[in-house]
């Protein structure tokens, strides 16, 4: 029987992979993809808790808001990436270290 912990472990794995992606990628698009993975992991958690917790729909609503925010984040993030590309002609985060101390 599939229970809550199964879902939590799937979410955990996706989250860890997303985190790894964010930490190691040098391509800003790769970093954005990692963020999407993390958001999806969070969503799986929300829906799992909504399913196995008390019978309300709050978890589903929050999940929809997360998707909405992910969309907004992706739009702005990609616009920033394009802006970076126009300025530096690269989206490698090592090429954009102009803020280093």
């Amino acid at each position, binding site marked *: 029987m599939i229970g809550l912990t199964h879902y939590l472990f799937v979410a955990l794995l996706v989250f860890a992979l997303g985190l790894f*992606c964010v930490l190691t990628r040098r391509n800003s698009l790769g970093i954005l*993809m990692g963020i999407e993975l993390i958001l999806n992991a969070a969503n799986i958690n929300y829906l799992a808790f909504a399913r196995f917790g008390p019978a309300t*729909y709050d978890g589903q609503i929050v999940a929809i808001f997360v998707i909405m925010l992910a969309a907004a984040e992706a739009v702005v993030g990609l616009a920033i990436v394009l802006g970076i590309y126009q300025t530096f002609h690269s989206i490698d985060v090592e090429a954009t270290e102009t803020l280093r101390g």
Partner: protein
Amino acid sequence: MQLADLVFYLLALLTVGSAAVVAFSRNVVYAAFSLMGTFLGAAGLYVFLAADFVAVVQVLIYVGGILVLMVFAVMLTHRIEDVQVSNRSVGTLPALLVVGAGAAILGYAVVTTPWRTAEPVPAEATTRIIGDLFLGDYLLPFELASVVLLAALIGAVSLSRKELRRE
């Protein structure tokens, strides 16, 4: 093992496996496409969690919107010839250590926490319920969300356009 369990494991495998490709692939195009696998797998999981509407939204927004944007961004920012090694990873080992430690702690928390789970109620179609909630209890967040989206839209336009010189 029941058929439903099998399907769950397949979906979980799809989700996690594609996520692994996203995390480890050296080609940004592959990463972007396997992201679709994660999104679809997650959508399948949502259906298992009796969240049909969220699953549809997931497919529509993530696969239909965000992913397409990602692919567009890849297309706009890379010359085709250097796509092969377009997604370098640096510092893999320390990252693995940190992430592994974090994952271990979280896994420990998942296993040891005494979850008070209720017996799942029978699944029902959620679209109408969510619609009512959005226009009822969640009206204000709903409207705020639309404002946020509008702001994101305007922000994206003003960020990505070419600077216009004032005459």
